[in-house]
């Protein structure tokens, strides 16, 4: 029998803790990644020549395996939460940076010109005009980044965290399939729930654009 339901019943509390821990490990990298990407995107829009090199560098960083990334950070940050956060944040950039730049670039010129003509300052134009119009594309990027990070958080089990990844690892160490299946299934469920929630947000902020 692959699944021991009785074990699941007895351990609902600790399974809930794993889910919470998983979310605690997921949220900061996505938020930091968004802030960093937004800064880089503004820079890339100001200095166009920077854009391609920046995107290419994030691509190279993404090619570094996550486990290797955590290991490389050990000399600097140890087996700390900061280690996990830094590595995971870096992985969001490859999705978020291009999406923010594309989103802002996609704002029609007529609209930005109209804002200029109405006397909007650059900051006000960005916050009140360009950002709202770019949100569908930006949130599309956030969806991919969030799902990716929820999966990668499981690898932090090897440096002592992991959320549901810790369950997968413990289940493996004890050759106990139930715990692995619980970890895998709930990770997938978290990904899907996060994706659907962000899709809902996307539709709510841009009701005029249902197709994205």
């Amino acid at each position, binding site marked *: 029998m692959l699944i021991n339901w009785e074990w699941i019943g007895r351990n609902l509390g600790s399974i809930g803790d794993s889910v919470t821990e998983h979310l605690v490990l997921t949220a900061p990298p996505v938020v930091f990644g968004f802030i960093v990407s937004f800064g880089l995107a503004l820079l890339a829009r100001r200095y166009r020549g920077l854009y391609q090199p920046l995107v290419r560098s994030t691509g190279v960083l993404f090619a570094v*395996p996550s*486990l*290797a990334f955590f290991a*490389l950070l*050990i*000399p600097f940050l140890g087996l700390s939460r900061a280690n996990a956060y830094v590595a995971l944040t870096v992985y969001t950039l490859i999705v978020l940076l291009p999406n923010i730049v594309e989103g802002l670039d996609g704002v029609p010129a007529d609209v930005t010109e109209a804002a200029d003509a109405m006397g909007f300052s650059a900051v006000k134009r960005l916050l009140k005009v360009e950002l709202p119009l770019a949100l569908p594309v930006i949130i599309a990027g956030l969806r991919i980044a969030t799902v990716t990070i929820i999966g990668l958080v499981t*690898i932090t089990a090897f440096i002592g965290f992991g959320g549901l990844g810790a369950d997968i690892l413990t289940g493996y160490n004890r050759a106990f399939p139930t715990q692995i299946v619980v*970890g*895998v299934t709930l990770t997938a469920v978290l990904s899907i729930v996060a994706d659907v929630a962000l899709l809902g947000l996307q539709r709510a902020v841009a009701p005029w654009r249902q197709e994205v």
Partner: protein
Amino acid sequence: MEVFVEGVLWIFDPDNWSGINAIPDRVREHVFYAVVALVVGAAIAVPIGLWTGHTGRLGNLAINIGNLGRAIPDLGIVAIAAVLIGFGILPVILALIALAIPPMLTNTYTGVRGVDADVRDCAVGLGFTGWRLLRQVEIPLALPLIFTGLRVSTVQVIATATISGFIGRAGGLGRYIFDGLSMFDTPRVVAGAILVALLGVLADVGLARLQRAVIPKGYAAALAEREAATTATRA
């Protein structure tokens, strides 16, 4: 920074280039797992992607498998395969095959499906049918995306093959990382991490080169031009 230097020195230490645990052997194992997984994965994913893309049938299935592949954690697939099948190399390679399939399947499907309807109609009007349409029109036009899928799968498979140093007790470069972690031998860990990272980046760069060589220059230029045109109208 010091430990980083120690890691690099570890790689260049002649002692680590021979005997058991030698770097060339570990690299060879790692590459072997990755290549087997990618070849078998491609042999499964690409034909299905081509067929679903060409016929337009079961397209949602191709997309959903891709999304599901992203939602299910790699670690979990390897762990389940190891517990169910037992230790050794087989569960690792089976899990890596399962990982390699979704990006290649989704991208191949999207590439073939995305072929301009005018181009397809034109080819049909010229008398192209079935297999010839696929081989001479759709596949060449879908090549950039097929390569994208291959590159994503490759990077992921090389990265995840690292876990096999722990799960499955198999070889590969992951062994340096896990052996190092359990022996508190940080230079070994760092050396393993550098080697895996290098392998991943090199494979990606190599495939990018191959992509440039395989895709006709004119088509690549046309794609770039179309991209530039859309960016220009947006800016």
